[in-house]
């Protein structure tokens, strides 16, 4: 292999747009945050490669949360929505073949989980998870119900804004990301201690999906657009000098 012939590695992460580990407003971080500085290194093959997930891994209903856990002929309860968008990297190029996994509470704000104790009821027809792989343009689309907000034990009266969790695999393990999508106009967004771990309003705006009436299916489902940006690869025609770090 010629040295670094294919790429210059991943662009360094912009930590001003990422949350600190220690954010006491979100109490659980206090004892779960590393205190030493992270050790910075340029990426190596170990971070520039990533597992391959093919369409063979994905079932037909995996991106339809309204039906993928429902009894035959039934569907999940709640406001029907389509969530769509693209996965791009920081250089603006689409990321095809990215695996997206998403999970969420039901319309009442209740998760299907043994440790979940909120009084809102489970929906027997809603599991709360889905997944898909982006197409050659980096695009994805799934159907679900709009999740409800819910209270959580942190402060005395903290509520999560409605949100959908996303887990994303790109082309390199250094692009690995888990984040959350919020809904435009939700008054709980600026109040939420988990949102407030971000101290750049632009980072919060980038996690907030706008309503898209043009993509909405009349008499069926509203649409929200959520683009996701993964770390980008450095581009150059010049070879890197030998790095004797």
């Amino acid at each position, binding site marked *: *292999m010629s*040295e670094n012939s*294919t790429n210059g590695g991943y662009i360094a992460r912009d930590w001003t747009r990422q*949350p600190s*580990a220690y954010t006491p407003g*979100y109490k659980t*971080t206090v*004892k*779960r*945050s*590393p*205190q*030493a500085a*992270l*050790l*910075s*290194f340029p*990426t*190596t*093959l*170990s*971070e*520039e*490669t990533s*597992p*391959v*997930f093919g369409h063979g*891994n994905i*079932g037909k209903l995996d991106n339809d949360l309204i039906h*993928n856990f429902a009894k035959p002929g039934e569907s999940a309860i709640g406001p029907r929505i389509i969530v769509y968008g693209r996965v791009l990297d*920081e*250089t*603006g190029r689409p990321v095809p*073949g990215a695996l997206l*996994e*998403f*999970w969420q509470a039901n319309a009442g704000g209740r*998760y*299907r*989980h*043994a*440790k979940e104790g909120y009084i809102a009821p489970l929906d027997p027809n809603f*599991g709360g*998870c889905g997944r898909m792989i982006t197409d050659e343009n980096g695009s994805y689309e799934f159907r679900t119900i709009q999740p409800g907000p819910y209270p959580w034990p942190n402060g005395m009266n903290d509520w999560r804004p409605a949100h959908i*969790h996303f*887990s994303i695999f790109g*082309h390199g393990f250094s692009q*690995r*990301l*888990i*984040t*959350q999508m919020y809904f435009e106009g939700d008054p709980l967004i600026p109040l939420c201690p988990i949102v407030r*771990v971000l101290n*750049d309003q632009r980072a919060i705006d*980038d996690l907030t999906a706008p309503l898209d009436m043009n993509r909405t299916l009349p008499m069926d489902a509203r649409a929200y657009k959520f683009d996701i940006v*993964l770390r*980008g690869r450095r581009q150059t025609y010049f070879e*890197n000098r030998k790095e*004797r*770090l």
Partner: protein
Amino acid sequence: MAQKLDYLKESASQTAGPYVHIGCMPNFSGISIYGGDLGTSMKTGQVSGKEIKISGVVYDGVGAPLRDAMIELWQADAAGLYPSANETRGNPDPNFTGFGRSPGDPVTGEFVFETVKPGRVPFRDGRLQAPHATLWIVARGINIGLHTRLYFEDEADANSEDPILTRIEHQNRVPTLLAKKTGEAAYRFDIHLQGPKETIFFDM
């Protein structure tokens, strides 16, 4: 004013939360779907190399095990090749995925990977790195996934010339990256989020 650089910004991370298993390991959390969870097996047939088991626990700053974490592992095969679309150096073991996912045990927090001892992979300048696996830890209370590396304590020679291990300023922290050999084919790798034994985490 100068021209604008037209880069986008990486989307901000948000915690995986307490219910990450619903999305990433739904069958583990009792939601029967997909025909199984991704990453539960790293072998799809007879693999090359030495088969090993890696287990450990993630501890918080008061020494309590995390029982709601998800740990991912990514590594090369026994020949040092990655089962990745980006691997251009040769053909990786077709029966090895290189990717594992483990939920902490709901009671003990223990994670387990049944894998193979990875081969050596070149660093950016061509020098060989010591055998290692990349680990990524997410959980409630972790705002951005924690990236670390697992090396093997019984690879002393390779470790002593590893381009990353040898560059760590606080050499007394290097043992936090070494899996201990606990059996003929078994290793232990505990992860400490805080405290005197705090694991080294990377920004790579």
